[in-house]
């Protein structure tokens, strides 16, 4: 494989200029109804780390930000993800996450509608790096799951 295919300009751009990078301002998230959600994860083998904060309103991801350290792939993937999921309904976000996981694991194909995600076609050929590409997505999925569990608990109280 050509390095070009792997380290596409899109990926390097997101790595060097990450979108939605940082934390959600406290003031913005302090209303009681949609509290700030946090989720974090690491890839212990690489030392990649991703921290995500998001706000849910009317079952939509109203805002999402991330910080992290790690390799190009993991950080670029997080940046692209935040752009793609912001504003979407939780259902749609979950569907996208699961779809991207399936694609990276070779069970589905890339399609044109995936936008910047298409840049990961090269990464898919490198099994050792698939985990890097998926890290942010796993962290967000975990976060959404925890959010939904809390909602259920709240209803049950």
């Amino acid at each position, binding site marked *: 494989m050509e390095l070009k295919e792997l*380290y*596409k300009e899109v990926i390097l751009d997101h790595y060097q200029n990450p979108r939605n990078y940082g934390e959600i301002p406290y003031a913005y998230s302090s209303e009681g109804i949609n509290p700030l959600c946090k989720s974090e994860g690491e890839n212990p083998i*690489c*030392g990649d780390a991703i921290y995500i904060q998001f706000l849910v309103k009317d079952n939509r991801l109203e805002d999402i930000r991330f910080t992290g350290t*790690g390799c*190009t792939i993991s950080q670029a993937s997080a940046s692209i993800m935040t752009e793609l999921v912001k504003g979407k309904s939780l259902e749609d976000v979950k569907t996208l996450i699961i779809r991207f996981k399936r694609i990276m694991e070779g069970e589905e194909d890339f399609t044109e509608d995936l936008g910047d995600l298409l840049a990961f076609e090269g990464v898919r050929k490198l099994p050792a790096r698939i985990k890097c590409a998926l890290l942010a997505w796993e962290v967000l999925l975990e976060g959404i799951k925890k959010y939904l569990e809390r909602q259920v608990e709240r209803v049950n109280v």
Partner: protein
Amino acid sequence: MYDVYKIRDDFPILKEKVNGKNLVYLDNAATTQKPLSVIDAIADYYKHYNANVHRGVHSLGVIATQEYERTRKKVANFIKAEDSSCIVFTKGTTESINLVAYGWGRKFLKEGDEIILTVMEHHSNIVPWQILAREKGLKLKFIPLKDDGTLDIESFYSLITGKTKLVGVTYVSNVLGTVNPIDNIVDAAHSVGARVLIDGAQGIPTIPTNVKSLNVDFLAFSAHKMLGPTGVGVLYGKREILEDMEPLLGGGEMIKKVSITDSVWADVPYRFEGGTPNIAGVIGFGKAIDYLNNLGMEEIFKYEKLLTTYALEKLSGIDGLTIYGPRDISLRSGIISFNYRDIHPHDVATILDQSGIAIRAGHHCAQPLHSVLGIPASCRVSLYIYNTKEEIDYLVESLERIEEVFRSGA
């Protein structure tokens, strides 16, 4: 004369292509490649005399047992142990160290006792002691590093007390390449009556070693890091210490007698080898030792110094490359870890892999050391007997091209 090109011919894998390029294998600290003689010995065993050991009266069982035990003798000679009964076969360094923790530590250490380790230990020589410390109320102390990446031996002298019962030190750091001063450590430890465990995983493969003159109490190492098969390790222990130890695994082969109410352990070293061992692996390991002996450990040691000197010099010339560990060649082995600009080690390793170069990226099972260094991960190049100067040149060239990728978007 040390003829590296002739040596390379003995290693089938060195003819492989990776991503269309010739394989340049620089991940020897993770595991080394195997010469054909080792690979063939394993196949021969399975094709001609595969049988369980120590149990059979029939001819295959006898031959298998003889070959298995012959490796024990070879290992004893290789490290100049007093007797082959001091050689216990395990599945690797990790099991060897755990055997010391469970079989010796759990039996003899008591609340308030202290264990001294170093911050450069591999997780294998930290985690078992943390587990034991929690269970028994022991205290773990860590010898810090000096700026050059060597042990701060003065600190060690101030950490060691009458309460110290064990000092566990890696022979060679698997990240920094630092070779530790075992003699000083043994002297100080023995002067307070503490035992010394050496994690020899990275040292035994390249440093000619005499356990008797080093006077260490325990030495652990792995076959797969010295041309041998995976799944085989060694614990050397002084005979009288082993005699007092409990086994880690209860089962077949390690007992003299079992009744419903009780068991009597077998003699050393069989007591520690419960269950069917990795017979093929141990037999293959014998051939690995033969191979190293044929080259001569002194020669290997010299060649590695030569190559390491060359690599350090070349790598130091790369702009933006930070090398961890000592620069003084007399204090280090052929393991060189570094970071290159702000490019994540994983990206470096992936890009080099596209050129057929295998290096390691990550924390190398030494997270505490990486914390001390203040980095999440590093790149590691580790050299062994078949590596060449040309390979190092190619590595350096390829490293220099990485910057381009990042500048141009490939």
